[in-house]
């Protein structure tokens, strides 16, 4: 069984209890050590914390997305312990009245089924600083260095029920949660920057040969900051705990919990602390802060901010007729997804528009985006321009072979795709007489193919289509040409018979 604790570093502009810039916000990524420090961060005498309301709102949004109840009254508590990365000698956290509690999330599984994951609580706290042993530039230093940039960053700790029974489901949940957080705009979810950290609590239920079961002691693996490590740690423990039980026979019980870390190189967990109840944190309500009261109006405002979540969007996109993998690709990142939604809206919405836009984005625009190394929304076209191109394609006015040329012509400009295409001669020629003339010349030049088509061998038509396209210099649409050839050949046959 696995229960998961997830720490999400919230991307507020300022820290949890002071105006210092917060390193979880893109404006403050990768700053010089100790450059995001105010007197409050350094815990100078006489400083006081003031709650960041935006951090509370972001936490409420995550709680709502996970089906949690939002506490109408929660409070701040001090967790007291000494460590050089903890400037005040206590961490402000929420002990017995978390902001969000008692939720559940239906985790979508491959094949369309779901698994219900209970959310015990989600509370807000402040992060600690960091201890290092290297000078900037990688020079070694004898002793410890404290960097307080991260100290005081708002941290949302989400605790699930032990509702997982496989590493894959845990990882699926973690990834889903990352997507949710990204859609909520509460973090960019960059794992390397520690925006999300996972701590699985793992034990194994062993079925005995003679019937009955035993439960191995719970192991908490600390501070995993990649999905790979998360999966690896759980799988390693699942096997190792059975071996340990065979060796020492220890089972789950009070004081039996231990804490381990993950060694990325050896792909194994390493013992950190044998007993977890050695610490007495002397929690008590922080007298510097007032309780958090969430009234109806505030809750309603925050609820209105929660957008449609990734799993709901994926389901809707599949409803457009897109394949599951395409739907997933469109929901992968927030900005490209919102761009896609905008294109669909420009097209008037609906399944047909959704399908056409989805296909265009994934088949044509993604190529360009990949080449540019950017998201679909940054490929140089506005949603209106993309919608214009999709419309031209759908109406048959723009041939597939001219799409790239049109995109290249208007990218980075405000040009309307239709007028640009017209100006560049990229549109299908609507001159039926000219088209018929090209078709007749092509039929005449490919008599054998024409005969085959007349005989019902439709595959032969490609040759004639190709010839027409060549004659037309790309100003016709293959689909229209196809229809025209069939029509001409039928007319001809009828004519012959008459």
């Amino acid at each position, binding site marked *: 069984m696995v229960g998961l604790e997830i720490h999400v570093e919230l991307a507020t502009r300022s820290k949890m209890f002071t105006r210092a810039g917060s390193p979880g916000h893109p404006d403050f990524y990768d700053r010089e050590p100790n450059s995001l420090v105010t007197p409050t961060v350094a815990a100078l005498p006489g400083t006081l914390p003031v709650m960041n309301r935006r951090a509370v709102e972001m936490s409420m949004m995550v709680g709502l997305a996970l089906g949690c109840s939002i506490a109408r009254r929660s409070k701040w508590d001090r967790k007291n312990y000494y460590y050089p990365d903890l400037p005040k000698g206590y961490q402000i956290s929420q002990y017995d009245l978390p902001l969000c509690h008692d939720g559940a999330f239906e985790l979508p599984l491959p094949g369309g089924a779901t698994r219900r994951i209970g959310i015990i609580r989600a509370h807000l706290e402040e992060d600690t600083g960091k201890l290092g042993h290297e000078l900037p530039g990688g020079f070694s230093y004898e002793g410890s260095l404290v960097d307080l940039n991260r100290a005081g960053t708002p941290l949302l700790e989400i605790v699930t029920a032990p509702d997982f029974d496989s590493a894959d489901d845990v990882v699926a949940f973690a990834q889903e949660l990352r997507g949710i957080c990204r859609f909520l705009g509460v973090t960019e979810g960059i794992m390397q920057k520690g925006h999300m950290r996972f701590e699985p609590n793992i034990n194994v239920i062993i079925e005995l040969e003679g019937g009955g079961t035993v439960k191995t002691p719970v192991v908490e693996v600390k501070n995993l900051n990649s999905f790979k490590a998360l999966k690896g740690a759980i799988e390693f423990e699942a096997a190792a705990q059975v071996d340990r039980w065979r060796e020492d026979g220890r089972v789950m019980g009070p004081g039996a919990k231990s804490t381990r870390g993950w060694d990325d190189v050896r792909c194994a967990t390493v013992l950190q602390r044998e007993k977890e109840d050695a610490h007495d944190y002397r929690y008590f309500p922080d*007298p*510097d802060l007032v309780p958090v009261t969430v009234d109806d109006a505030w809750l309603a405002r925050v609820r209105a901010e929660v957008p449609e979540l990734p799993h709901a969007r994926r389901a809707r996109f599949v409803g457009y007729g897109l394949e599951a993998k395409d739907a997933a690709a469109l929901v992968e990142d927030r900005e490209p997804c919102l761009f896609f939604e905008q294109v669909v809206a420009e097209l008037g919405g609906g399944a047909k528009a959704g399908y056409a836009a989805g296909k265009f984005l994934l088949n044509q625009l993604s190529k360009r985006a990949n080449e540019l190394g950017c998201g679909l929304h940054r490929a140089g076209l506005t949603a209106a321009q993309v919608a214009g191109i999709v419309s031209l394609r759908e109406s048959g006015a723009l041939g597939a072979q001219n799409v790239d040329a049109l995109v290249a012509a208007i990218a980075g400009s405000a040009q309307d795709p239709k007028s640009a295409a017209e100006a560049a001669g990229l549109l299908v020629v609507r001159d039926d007489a000219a088209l018929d003339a090209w078709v007749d010349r092509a039929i005449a030049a490919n008599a054998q193919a024409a005969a085959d088509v007349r005989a019902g061998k439709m595959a032969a038509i490609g040759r004639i289509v190709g010839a027409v396209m060549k004659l037309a210099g790309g100003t016709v649409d293959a689909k229209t040409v196809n229809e025209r050839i069939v029509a001409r050949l039928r007319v001809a046959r009828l004519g012959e018979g008459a």
Partner: protein
Amino acid sequence: MQHADLTALRDAIATGAASAEAACAAMLDAADRLNPVLNAYHETFRDHALAEARAVDADARAGRPLPPLAGVPVAVKDNIATVLGHTTCSSRMLGNYRSPFDASAVERLRSAGAVTIGKTNLDEFAMGSSGEHCHWGPVRNPWDTARVPGGSSAGSAAAVAAGLCAAAIGSDTGGSIRQPASLCGIVGLKPTYGRVSRWGLVAFGSSLDQVGPMTRSVRDAALMLDCMSGLDARDSTTADRPATALAATVERPVEGLRVGIPRQYVSGANDPEVNAAVQAAADAYRAMGATIVEADLPLTDVGISTYYVIAPAEASSNLARYDGIRYGHRAQLRPGEDLFTLYARSRSEGFGPEVQRRIMLGTYMLSSGYYDAFYKRALQVRRRIKEEFDRAFAECDVLLGPTAPTPAFGFGANADPLAMYLCDVYTVNTNIAGICGVSLPAGHAVRDGKHLPIGVQLQANAFEEDRLLRAARMLERAFAERNAKARPAVSA
């Protein structure tokens, strides 16, 4: 002008009748002369103060509009952060500490034109009731230097009493403004919790701490509070109320005033002269047409035990930041010694015995298994004490009683910590309930041939400072003659 009150000095400066620079220089000179005896100041800011005062004089001469405290020298208790000089809390731990910011109260006083003249000594980290527990040596009472000035705002009280400043600010967690005010014969106001921002006040018991004025008159206390109080975005526990405007009304007597005297306050354990002063105050009020009612505060006695759970518990956590890592005293380590030795030794060397005692008490009481029996229970009693005051204030406007059970005592007289803690029996509940209280002079006792001030305390419900100070002003007027009978032995 040194013995005029702050308001009179302010008026004289504004009209050109007095020079701010001269007044300031006289106080600085007196401080230089008397501080070796009184030890009221840890440091004074002569150059800064004189420059500021000169600027005010120039403004006054030019007829420019002056802010309400223009040119008056104000002393600041050394547990209140100032960019000027040090902020040591009279502790070895912060012996060299300089604050990069001003406390909110200091900032507001300065923008009201006050001149910061110096930092005053205190019982280390505001823990004490005598002024003896100061790393820079004990503070002495200007009325009798063989006796303590009271604490913890010892230096502020002594400086105001001896004329070494026009007024001072202190902090009051369980009586630290009112008790030394009483022992030094001045006015000390503990405002309602949330009236004055705690930003920049070095935390002792965060839910009890409050910055307040220590002055020579009730009207000065009103004016000072007007200039310091009001909502501050940097302290979430400040009340969402504008600054007070007490100076405008303080001279107006309260019509139909009802003065309650809690029967628990007139205790046989008090010095008889203290009880007599309370009786004299009651008589004076009656003579002014007030109604005297008996009040009942049966929880008066449990205040001290409640206080000595809540305050040390909060202190144990508030003082955890003094770990020798980022600032403050750091002990020398011998090779091979570890981080936890660094913590333990820095804190053992940096903190005095009283501070260590309270940190240990608080740590113990917050520990797993003891929390419910101590801290949680203390919070329950705290609610009951507040309710008890609410019931009392339904029957009266202010409560009258002694500020401290005795006049100033000798050095070492309360060496037993428990005896010392009892000095605050009449003041701690004001903080526990978060209401306001003021101590004002009520005559003298004579001991060893020396006059020692006696104070009486008035308390009013939360945010009732207007009624509190108007009632106090009534008594101050009635006691003018009584209080004029003696002056401090050591004085400018």
